[in-house]
């Protein structure tokens, strides 16, 4: 027979452990709000744009989405199958699914396991993933990830000027305009912004992933050698070249290697392209876009349609 005192001690220890772990009834205290965006086709068509104000400490990306849209799930509720009737499918040679980004960074865990802390920008996008199964980072949540607490804590922001000239100052001023002061040097956990012509930027190993194609980098643009320099081409959703840009082309894109912080590239074929790309750093030009190409002041969302 188990002694009663032992049972009482065990219950007291359990209650103490639960109290110390932060248990309680209901969804918990209010953490503020998050911004929720739902779109399709690489952000081309916006389906839902909402400021969600009732985020609590037990909320996950899935719970917030469930409160704001009609959804169905699969794999025991871990993955989203459909949002407002738009269902993931794999037929007629096209494989489309729902992907989500928090502060412009693809999540390494499912929506049901991603806990929110308040202040995040959650972007759900329904897209064909044949061109790139994974797009590790996007620019469409500007000023995130710079202004927020991507990954749960603030990161320093480093602007690395790689022959960018005046474009580097433009980038710094754009960041300052959204309340982000670029740190001196390049800390290990910094979100880096590489500014300069592709000839220089490609020396960075993370940025160089772009030359390996969208399957590796998630960026639907490619650079190739041409007459002693580089030429830029825009890719379609299938990952194949869709348009060639001229010598004045520029690019704003984000990529990432492993679990390291994202790296943004503000680059171009030449100085003019770099300057034009730096000028794009604001909500009006970047919102709900995976990456943006610019040529002679005319911008194109990537991947090209």
């Amino acid at each position, binding site marked *: 027979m188990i002694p009663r005192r032992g049972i009482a001690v065990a219950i007291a220890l359990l209650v103490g452990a639960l109290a*110390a772990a*932060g248990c309680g009834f209901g969804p918990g205290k209010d953490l503020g709000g998050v911004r929720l965006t739902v779109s399709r086709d690489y952000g081309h068509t916006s389906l839902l744009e909402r400021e969600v104000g009732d985020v609590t400490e*037990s909320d996950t990306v899935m719970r917030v989405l469930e409160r704001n849209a009609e959804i169905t799930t699969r794999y025991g509720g871990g993955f989203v199958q459909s949002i407002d009737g738009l269902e993931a499918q794999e037929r007629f040679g096209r494989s489309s699914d729902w992907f989500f980004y928090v502060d412009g960074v693809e999540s390494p865990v499912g929506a*049901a396991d991603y806990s929110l802390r308040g202040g995040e920008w959650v972007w759900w996008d329904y897209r064909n993933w044949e061109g790139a199964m994974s797009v590790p980072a996007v620019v469409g949540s500007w000023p995130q990830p710079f202004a927020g607490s991507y990954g749960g804590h603030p990161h320093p922001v480093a602007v690395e000027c790689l022959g960018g000239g005046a474009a580097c100052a433009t980038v710094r001023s754009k960041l300052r305009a959204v309340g982000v002061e670029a740190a001196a040097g390049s800390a290990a956990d910094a979100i880096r912004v590489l500014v300069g012509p592709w000839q220089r930027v490609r020396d960075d190993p993370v940025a160089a992933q772009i030359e390996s194609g969208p399957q590796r980098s998630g960026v639907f643009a490619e650079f190739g050698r041409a007459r002693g320099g580089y030429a830029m081409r825009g890719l379609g959703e299938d990952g194949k070249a869709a348009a060639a840009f001229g010598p004045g082309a520029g690019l704003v894109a984000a990529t990432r290697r492993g679990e390291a912080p994202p790296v943004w590239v503000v680059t171009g074929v030449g100085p003019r392209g770099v300057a034009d790309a730096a000028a794009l750093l604001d909500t009006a030009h970047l919102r709900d876009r995976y990456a943006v190409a610019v040529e002679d002041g005319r911008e194109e969302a990537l991947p090209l349609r």
Partner: protein
Amino acid sequence: MRSPFAYRPRSGPLQSASPAAAVAYLGSLATVGFLYSNPIVLAATGAALVLAGLLAGARDAVRAALWMGLTLALLIVAVNVLVVDRGATVLVRLGQLPLLSDVITAEALAAGAVIGLRAAVVLLAFAVYSACVDPDRVLRALRPLARRSALTATLVSRLVPVAAADAARLRDAARLRGPAAAPVGRAALARRLLAGSLDRAVDVAATLELRGYSLNPPRPTPVATLFPPYTSKKRCDRRGERPRARRSRYDRRFYVVGALVLIAGVAGKLLGADAFAEYPAVQLGVGPATLALATLLALSGLTPLSPRPRRTASTSLPAGWRS
């Protein structure tokens, strides 16, 4: 003490039916239990099995299965709510604890209940089968298909209850030594039981050998080729064909209901009768297809109903002659 799930011979339709018919009927209900997640359909299947068990006289088996199913369901619910963090409706926050979910949600509770209900339904199906279908007839029916497996299964089905009875006798003997005697440990009891089982196994093996079980099965004599013009049909039937299994007049009933349940189950699945989602929020489908299927399933529980004995003029006695 006899297990409530042990087969007891009775004269009801389910016990009288051939094993294949009984298995077709109970198997179709168990299949629906495996296929469906909608709690209305599962509850109707469970109700059908309870009804079938009660009509077949297996009250003890049904009661024991319900008790075990409830216990199992509660255990499944408890485990599910503690390890699954899916679901939109947070009831309790547990904080960060190793191996456990950080929240208890209403949806995890409902999902656990549905899994538990399914387990209980399947348990009920097997309980009714165990209590109402003669295992010897099942093994006899399997013998032409797998002779050695059937023999092994027969031996196991005989020796396990014998071992259980041995264990009960040993426990009784130990208890009867009196209160002052040293308690007998489980290890000692198990050792004695094992030794006894081995002795018994040797005896069984010797008996089997004496009876010629080690020899190849006799081949049917090709009588028809030896005496082609003179072989009678009767003789060929007697020596060259397998004996035909005994059929019951209730067989057709169980085959028909089993097929109907299976067809309705598959059709209902295609028509959306299984509409139920646990996550992210519980959505229960109560459409016409679900309700129709549930009604049909519940009614299928009446299949083992015994026909009322018909009273004819020749057998009934005049009022004054009744004793």
